[in-house]
């Protein structure tokens, strides 16, 4: 398959929240990326509720209902409701289907009764843990695909957080081994998506559902999460930033296989993906603090089309259930963005979001639209191979960080980054050579099965 060789946007200034070059319309007529930002609420079931299908249905009925009700109560025009599968919903496709059917019924009731326009995204759980099963050929693999088929009947949008390369990544991330991370994200992850996504797209098309997109959550977010905040000592922030850039080589594959967006919220690489593809993207930032902390809470809104909370466990708060509370917070977040668009102040508003975080952290810096675009450009200019474009993304990311005098580093970060860059620069030209090098270097890693990636 030919890899993407051009940018959808000829320059970063063209990118704006609420606007995608190729908007997507769901079967319920909700337009995403067509000129306004829409909230994406993600409730998560309470422990224990997964015991039986009955209790889990009841849990989602409550959580979904609270979100929809709150939207009506405060006047939110549109909503995307995402259910991230818990193990049981994918493990038994029947569960996934029943919950998707229920959610759709609820959406339609509210549309009918109030005129609320909404869509439902089903995110299947990727149970194929590489060090436990052959990700291309195992019972879990077929279960994942069955779950897609079951949910596609009802869901407006389909997604997954695929985990190809994870076994190598986990081994390397805690060893500061960027070569291995590049192999995991750029080569293994990409090859897995190239195998998985055509099947998802086919299922989606068959049922008239939308193949949304994927994320490198399993790798880049692990890095971001472990790097943590300013007191974190688990990982260098520069490694997390480079891992983010490398995530593009990976997530981009889903769209090259026919995914049409909206991309998955937790893919912090989405500003880069949007710059390349022009497809609508879901993003998350400050209002997903309920799910995890980040150093880029505002800048992530700069070019988003959907604005999400990632995940919040269903619980009571003084102001209602968490599902209602976060629907309200997201609703007002997007209301101010949409107002900016309506008033013609979107540039100024975007500038505030970006400048809030641009120099707060490395992650925020490289995800600022201009830098995101530049990394994307490096990706499409180096489309000889998955490896080549991922390496280019990492190198460009590093160069951008080193080039801006307003971006400060602790001495540890400075050393680390220098180290990663020299290591990357020493890597072979050709993908085959790199693969040989890695197959040898990581042969001993527990559970690594080259055949599972067609190697």
């Amino acid at each position, binding site marked *: 398959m030919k890899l993407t060789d051009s940018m959808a946007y000829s320059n970063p200034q063209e990118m704006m929240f609420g606007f995608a070059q190729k908007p997507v319309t769901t079967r319920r007529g909700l337009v995403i990326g067509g000129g*306004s930002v829409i909230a994406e609420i993600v409730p998560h079931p309470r422990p224990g509720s997964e015991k039986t299908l009955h209790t889990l249905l009841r849990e989602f009925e409550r959580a979904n209902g609270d979100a929809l009700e709150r939207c009506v109560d*405060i*006047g*939110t*025009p549109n909503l995307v409701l995402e259910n991230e599968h818990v193990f049981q919903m994918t493990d038994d496709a029947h569960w996934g289907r029943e919950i998707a059917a229920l959610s759709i019924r609820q959406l339609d009731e509210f549309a009918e*009764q109030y005129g*609320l326009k909404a869509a439902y995204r089903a995110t299947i759980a990727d149970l194929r843990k590489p060090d436990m099963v052959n990700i291309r050929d195992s019972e879990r693999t077929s279960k994942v695909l069955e779950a897609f088929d079951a949910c596609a009947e009802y869901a407006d949008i389909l997604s997954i957080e695929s985990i190809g390369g994870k076994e190598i990544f986990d081994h390397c991330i805690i060893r500061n081994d960027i070569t291995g991370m590049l192999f995991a994200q750029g080569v293994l992850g990409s090859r897995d998506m190239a195998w998985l996504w055509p099947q998802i797209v086919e299922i989606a098309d068959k049922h008239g559902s939308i193949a949304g997109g994927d994320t490198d959550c399993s790798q880049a977010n692990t890095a971001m999460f472990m790097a943590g905040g300013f007191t974190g000592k688990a990982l260098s922030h520069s490694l997390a930033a480079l891992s983010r850039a490398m995530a593009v080589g990976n997530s981009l594959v889903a769209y090259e296989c026919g995914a049409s967006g909206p991309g998955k919220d937790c893919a912090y690489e989405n500003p880069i993906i949007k710059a390349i593809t022009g497809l609508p993207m879901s993003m998350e930032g400050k209002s997903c603090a309920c799910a995890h902390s980040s150093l880029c809470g505002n800048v992530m809104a700069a070019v988003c089309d959907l604005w999400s909370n990632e995940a919040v466990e269903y619980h009571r708060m003084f102001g209602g259930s968490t599902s209602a509370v976060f629907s309200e917070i997201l609703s007002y977040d997007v209301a101010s963005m*949409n*107002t900016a668009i309506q008033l013609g*102040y979107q540039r100024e508003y975007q500038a505030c979001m970006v400048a809030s975080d641009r120099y707060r952290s490395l992650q925020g810096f490289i995800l600022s639209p201009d830098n995101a675009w530049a990394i994307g450009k490096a990706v499409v200019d180096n489309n000889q191979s998955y490896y080549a474009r991922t390496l280019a993304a990492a190198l460009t990311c590093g160069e951008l960080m080193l080039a801006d005098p307003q971006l400060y580093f602790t001495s540890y970060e400075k050393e680390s980054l220098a180290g990663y860059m020299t290591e990357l620069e020493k890597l072979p030209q050709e993908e085959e050579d790199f693969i040989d090098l890695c197959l040898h270097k990581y042969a001993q890693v527990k559970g690594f099965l080259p055949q599972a990636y067609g190697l």
Partner: protein
Amino acid sequence: MKKPPHNSPIFTRYDLNVEDRHHQGARKVSSDLLLQRVADSLVTGDEDETCMAVSQALNAHKPLEIINESLIPGMQEVGRLWDLGNYFLPQVILSSDAMIAGITLCEEEMGHSMERKAKVVTHTAEGDIHDIGMQIVNALLRAGGFDVISLGADVPIEEVVDACRIHRPVMLTGTALMTTTMTAFPRIAMRLKESGLDIPFVCGGGALSEEFVTSFELGIWGSDAAQAASMAEDALSGLDWRQLRAKWNG
């Protein structure tokens, strides 16, 4: 300051969308003009007018007739409009005030107070002064014809239990708006059980959840004050707390 164009996708006024979806007036309750006038005054919630109408009606009708053929059916109309979503809370409260005033007049005429359906004890949890919810419950229960013994706000557990021992109500209600005060309810329920008083204990208030209230015996969760009267009717008709919970919760 700039204003957005009209009908921009910033918000949707759903209240306008659903407006006069179900518009309906009050139905006629009596062919007798005097009795209908009493009912009308209730529907508009005009206490003074109700008193005048009732005194007039008393010239032609027996007090009990007025109660049964205009005051009570009139109030039922109000309840219906409220259930339909046509009436807002204050309209119901005012009507119930008016009805009570009217009934008082009739009772004076009868020389004895009319038969109430049954006693209900209401209170707001110990340490909690959030009692508006309870006040609404009181009004709606009275409107429903129940004899309401309200212990007020911040009521010690013992006082609640004693009141139940003395009055033997068909139902007990509790309101709590603070998670730090709602803990009184399971303790009340336990003490009631100990005293052999299996009284349905309907608990409501912002702090409570169905999970919490159904986690202790006797407890039934009330999400809306409007349910109180119907719940009391059920209790009166003999449903025990388990049956009430089965019907109203879950």
